[in-house]
């Protein structure tokens, strides 16, 4: 599904140039669950941005489903993104002004799904995430674990092929964290590809494969399953 080859990304300020990604290469097959680990500043987030089509690489190749997407413009990336990729963030990033239901509904609105159909899909996914009873609450009224479940629901409501998770349990206690991980496992078992950036060895053990990074390069790769 994803093939990156010699991927490069630089950050320039007036004086210094930092290499965020240094000729990074790896592949992810459809249905895989990959964890990416490494210390702060190793380029994990940059990588996730590029994989999520939020940012452009400075060099190398990025094949998504067999198509070269490096160099796509914002409009094309946006199009590809909304049909194929779901995001889960450490800080949940729910919209404060919208209820649980409305937050989950948002991606469907952007892809142009009809209202009746939207309602059906949102309710189905809320049911699955066991958050249906909170559908009319606003994010601030929920616990962290509940918020992250809403975020996961929002990420999957469009049935994306790929979910990118950026430290999904980073702001949660262990019980809530485990629940979220269980959700991701369920999704993965149902066929969704997952790439997760994490600091937690515990979370990483849920994945099939761990890629460890340092200074923008891949250091090791452990296959777990």
């Amino acid at each position: 599904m994803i093939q990156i080859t010699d991927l490069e990304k630089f950050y320039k300020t007036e004086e210094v140039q930092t290499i965020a990604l240094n000729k990074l290469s790896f592949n992810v097959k459809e249905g895989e669950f990959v964890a990416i680990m490494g210390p702060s500043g190793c380029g994990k987030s940059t990588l996730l941005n590029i994989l999520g089509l939020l940012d452009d690489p400075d060099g190398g190749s990025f094949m998504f489903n067999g198509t070269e997407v490096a160099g796509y413009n914002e409009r094309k990336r946006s199009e590809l993104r909304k049909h194929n990729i779901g995001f889960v963030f450490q800080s949940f990033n729910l919209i404060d002004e919208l209820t649980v239901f409305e937050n989950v509904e948002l991606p469907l609105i952007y892809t142009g799904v009809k209202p009746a159909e939207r309602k059906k899909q949102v309710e189905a996914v809320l049911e699955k995430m066991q958050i249906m009873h909170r559908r009319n609450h606003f994010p601030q009224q929920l616990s962290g674990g509940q918020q992250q479940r809403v975020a996961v629901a929002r990420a999957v409501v469009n049935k994306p092929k790929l979910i990118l998770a950026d430290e999904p349990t980073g702001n949660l206690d262990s019980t809530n964290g485990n629940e979220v991980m269980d959700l991701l496992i369920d999704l993965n078992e149902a066929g969704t590809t997952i790439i997760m950036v994490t600091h937690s060895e515990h979370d990483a053990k849920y994945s099939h494969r761990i890629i460890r990074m340092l200074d923008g390069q891949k250091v090791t790769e452990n296959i777990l399953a």
Partner: protein
Amino acid sequence: MIRSYIKIAWRSLKTNRLFSIVNILGLSIGLATTLVLFLFILHERSFDSMYANKDKIYRVLLNTTEDDLETWTGSPSAVALELEANIPDIAEAGRLLKHDFGGTAFIKASNEVFTEKKLFWSDASVLDMFDVEIVKGEGSEVLKTPNTVLLSESTAKRYFGNENPIGKTLTIDDVDVVEVRGIFKDFPENSSLDFNVVAPFLMQNAAKNPTWDNASFETFLRFNSASPNVANVEAKIQDILDKNVKKDDQWYNFSLQPLEEIHLYSSTYKDSYIERNGDINQIRNLTALAILILIIACINYMNLITARSQKRATDVGINKTLGASVRDIIVRFYIETGLITAIAMILGGVLAVVALPVFNDIAGKELDISSLFSIEIIIFLVLIWFVTSLISGSYPALYLSRFSPKEVLKPSTNKGGVASVIRKGLVVVQFSASVVLIIGVIVIHQQLEYIQNKSLGYNPENVMAISTSAIRGGQANQALVNAFKKLPNVSVVGRSQGYPGMGVSGRSINKPNTDETMGISTNTSEREVADVLQLKLLAGQLLPKNKQAGDTLVEVVVNKTTVDFLGLSPEEAIGKKVAMQLGNNAYIHGVVEDFNFASLHNPIGAYAFHNSNREPKSYLLIRFTNEVLSETISNFENTFKNIAPNSAFEYTFLDKNLELLYEKEQRTANVGLLFSILAVIVACLGLFGLAAYMAEQRHKEIGIRKVFGASVPRIVQLLSMDFMRLVLISLVISFPLAFYFMNQWLQDFAYRVTISWTVFAIAGALALMITFVTVGYQAVKAAVANPIKSLRTE
């Protein structure tokens, strides 16, 4: 999708109360102002639009071609006749004279005497061209016979109550007896012409002997077709003038003014009988002010919404990761702005309703609240809503929509960049505008103060002028003078044609052995008038006490400016014969020091008191020894009524009358003050909001500084200085602008204050103080907060 945007916008409004209140309040003040002014402008522009012949009616203007180059609205009485007879394009022409050349009439109806300020002597054609609607009796044709009169509906009611007025007689000023022959509908409020009583012009001397001299008659023309070739007609008028008046004696020429321009473009013309004059400059200034306030309010919106860009960036980022396109985001921000503007609009409408009476009071207008609900206003509102939303929404929509979705994953630490520069720029614009307004208000106030306290060369205090135009015959008048002289508290009494502050007769004076002439105001008066006014005699004597009947000798007492023009010293001038259209036998008898007989807009011109009987002495001027009480006035009224039972007791105090000369400026000052306060309030609202968000944005920095030992005053200083610096820049920008504008405004006065540096100091101090108070509150709040709190949130 749009529903979801409205939902987000609405909920975001509710969660961010301060932001919403500041924004909506600022915008609604701006909108209310614009609305009230639009009403006002609409009303001013509607003048005379109701007349069917509005495109065919023109007024003849007279332009003097000597010294002052003034434009008068009156022309000689021969003009209408000659033009109608000799220019085929003109369907009809007519003349209009306000009673007694602009005075008050005393009308005896039944057994009561009424003071009538709107009696006009008019040709029938004037009523025809303005399609005056007759509701009872005969129409304009009655003006072709003498001793007839037409009354307005409300005047007929005032004079005769519910009795049938037709066939009743009226006595005007105890002289002319006229019969009421018809009743016309009251003139609408937005008509330039406004008659209560119309009597035939042909009863006037000027109609019996039409001349090319006395330019006191407003002349209206109706053309056969709309929009005639004005230049062509004006050339023909010049030909007619050349035929009738020798080139050497032509001290004027004529031009034409279309009816639609009469209301707004006549404010600089002299001596019009039309009192409902507007001023296009006032309209322009007010429009500019309204737009300025609206822009300041829009700037607030833009500033506040972008000041919160950190939160916005995250929002935009999330939406983009969920699939929103740039277009979606732009639409979203416009909708949000549109919603806020709509709420502000409604609130602004309510404010306008509340503010309208206040505006009417300050501006001296009678705008009607019901006109707020007209179709024009509704179209205007929708238009303003659209424009405001577009202006205010553009910046956030176009700027924020470009935020990269990366922001979500790693919030940028770059706090502003371009946005912050633009924001600061906008604050500078707001404050510059406010400071210009503050300075404007101070200068206008100083100028008015100056005018009111300036030494005028005569003493207007404790002088009363009583109108005696209805008292005929020397005996009755002499009896009146004698009776008043005997009253306690009266020091001097004298009769005169007019008094300083009102127009008297305009003539011209010729410098002997040259072609040079100069306009001169002449005032038929008694010797005592100079004492009433406390004028200073420079040479010669005051007018002689007595004058024999039939004596053709005319004695003249002129002011210093007159003898300066003649090239004589006051002493040399005594006994010299003068050519000033007072016959061949006029001599200078005395010279008085200059005094400001007109408003201080004009420099002192030539002025002469004389004892020719060409004009009636219509006023009794009385000087008191001390302040007049109301019982003294009723005592006067009794004395007056005893001698002149057929006249109403009408009086004015000279100093009160002078204040009327500056009414327009006083109004300008009041309206300016109102607008400036509004502008400053709106700008402060913006500053307040901005300071709140600035403090919020820098809370982490403040926390760190406090952990490392910064004191509360240091933090307050840190936060306030940023804004203070902006205000200082505004001062630098606004000072020269304000100086330029106010200097322009002062040019209208012949006597004016110089703009002193203290004005700028006061305005600057005021602006800095307002800023400090506004920002200080937020700064102190941020500074005293516990730093642990702010540092923990990251």
